[in-house]
């Protein structure tokens, strides 16, 4: 069926508007881009900065060492992210338990989240990596493991609060329905509350994982050489900052897939929530 003349007029009008929008966006982007380039390259110190930060030759030389460091980042990230998510979930569930028997567990979990959200990560790494070996206990793991533990303990506290927010966001009527079917508190948590809670907080959880990706490098404070540390060593050798730029670009590339997943999950969650309305 062909649309009426009225509708054809509307379609044509909307098409003209769309073309105009695209042209305007292109123009405005071109102007902004030109201004930025002119401002940076036209600045009095540009030639020196270009040489100190964007020296392709020195950058290429630093790549192998930085990639070696980055491999450490990736391994640490995977292990620490999984461990911190598990710890966060356990702590969040502990905080929801009721009854006098669980008072110590509740108190411990609450104290933990309050403490480790407050203490700077760098201090936790120092305490773990230098303090624990100082005890001279049998079988103390290496600094890399201790540094990883510091990351897990710190991020676990943040993730626990995200999980807890998710648990509390599940409507009480869901609990009433589950309990009235005869499910125990534990079964209600396991089958009804947690699946909904985790789905709801998946975007913020992934977001914290992106943040963790940048912070795993801080274990280098205790000795292990990560990507940033490797870049720093190259920089110290050549008095040129290009290795930092190389490391930064590699970090962004590493973060892109995770950020894309986060955005995807967030969008899907939003769409699902609006599906019913």
């Amino acid at each position: 069926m062909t649309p009426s003349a009225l509708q054809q007029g509307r379609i044509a009008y909307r098409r003209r508007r769309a073309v105009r929008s695209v042209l305007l966006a292109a123009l405005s982007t071109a102007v902004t881009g030109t201004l930025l380039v002119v401002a940076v390259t036209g600045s009095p110190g540009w030639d020196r900065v270009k040489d100190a930060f964007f020296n392709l030759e020195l950058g290429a030389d630093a790549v192998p060492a930085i990639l070696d460091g980055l491999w450490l980042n990736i391994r640490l990230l995977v292990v620490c992210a999984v461990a911190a998510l598990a710890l966060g979930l356990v702590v969040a569930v502990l905080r929801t338990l009721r009854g006098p028997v669980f008072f110590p567990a509740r108190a411990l979990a609450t104290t933990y989240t309050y403490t480790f959200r407050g203490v700077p990560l760098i201090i936790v790494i120092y305490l773990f990596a230098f303090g624990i070996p100082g005890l001279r206990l049998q079988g103390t793991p290496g600094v890399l493991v201790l540094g990883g533990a510091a990351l897990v303990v710190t991020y676990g506290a943040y993730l626990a609060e995200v999980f807890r927010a998710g648990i509390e966001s599940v409507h009480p009527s869901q609990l009433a329905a589950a309990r009235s079917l005869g499910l125990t508190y534990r079964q209600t948590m396991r089958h009804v509350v947690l699946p909904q809670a985790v789905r709801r907080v998946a975007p913020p959880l992934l977001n914290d994982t992106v943040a963790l990706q940048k912070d795993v490098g801080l274990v280098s404070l205790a000795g292990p050489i990560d990507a940033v540390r490797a870049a720093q060593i190259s920089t110290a050798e050549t008095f040129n900052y290009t290795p930092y730029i190389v490391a930064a670009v590699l970090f962004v590339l590493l973060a892109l897939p995770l950020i894309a997943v986060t955005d995807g999950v967030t969008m899907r969650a939003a769409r699902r929530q609006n599906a019913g309305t």
Partner: protein
Amino acid sequence: MLLSISGVRKVFGASVVLEDLDLGVEEHQVVALIGASGSGKSTLLRCVNLLTEVDDGVIRLDGEDITDPRVNADRVRQKIGMVFQSYNLFPHMTVLDNITLAPTRVHRRTSKEAREQAREWLSRVGLSDKTDSYPDGLSGGQQQRVAIVRALVNSPRLLLLDEVTSALDPELVGEVLTMIRDLKTDGMTMVLATHEMGFARQVADKVAFLDGGRVLEEGPPERVLGDPTEARTRQFLARIIEAGRL
């Protein structure tokens, strides 16, 4: 007597919701609770299901005092089914999983057995094609029928229905009421809080009018709804008629 409620009192802060309330329900009997919003109908049902603790009085199910704090509430709830005004289906589970959750986890039936039973019920209520749908893909009436099936597969001794049609569009009310009528034919014992006076008259063996936290008047529906003795009941019914709901 299957359910006997005597002297029950419930207070929320400063407001007394139930006050010295008595009510009995015989096996296979259908009792309709009527009364204005806030008269305590929902609270009473939640007390029977132990979702809310009573502040005084005794509720007996099959002769057992279920308001005794030493009673295992999970075990009591296994004998009571409850259906809510807002369906309360689990949104992350399919219709089939919603229905089989309690049979498999609480009543320890095999997954195969539970699925078969669920499918049988779904075809009986005409929802076979929705087995693998998620709740948000169903109309309100369909969701409520699934919620009723979810309660029934546990073979409860008693079914509590809390204004189960109040959230439904008028044209969807019928399908849910038909299902409840069929349950009565099967001999299910039910207590239902409702605003559907016409339905209460048809399906209930006894109507109890709640006012000020007590059962002010109870009896056969024809008498309570047709010729009430209490002035408050007459007032309430007059308002319902005025609103065109009777």
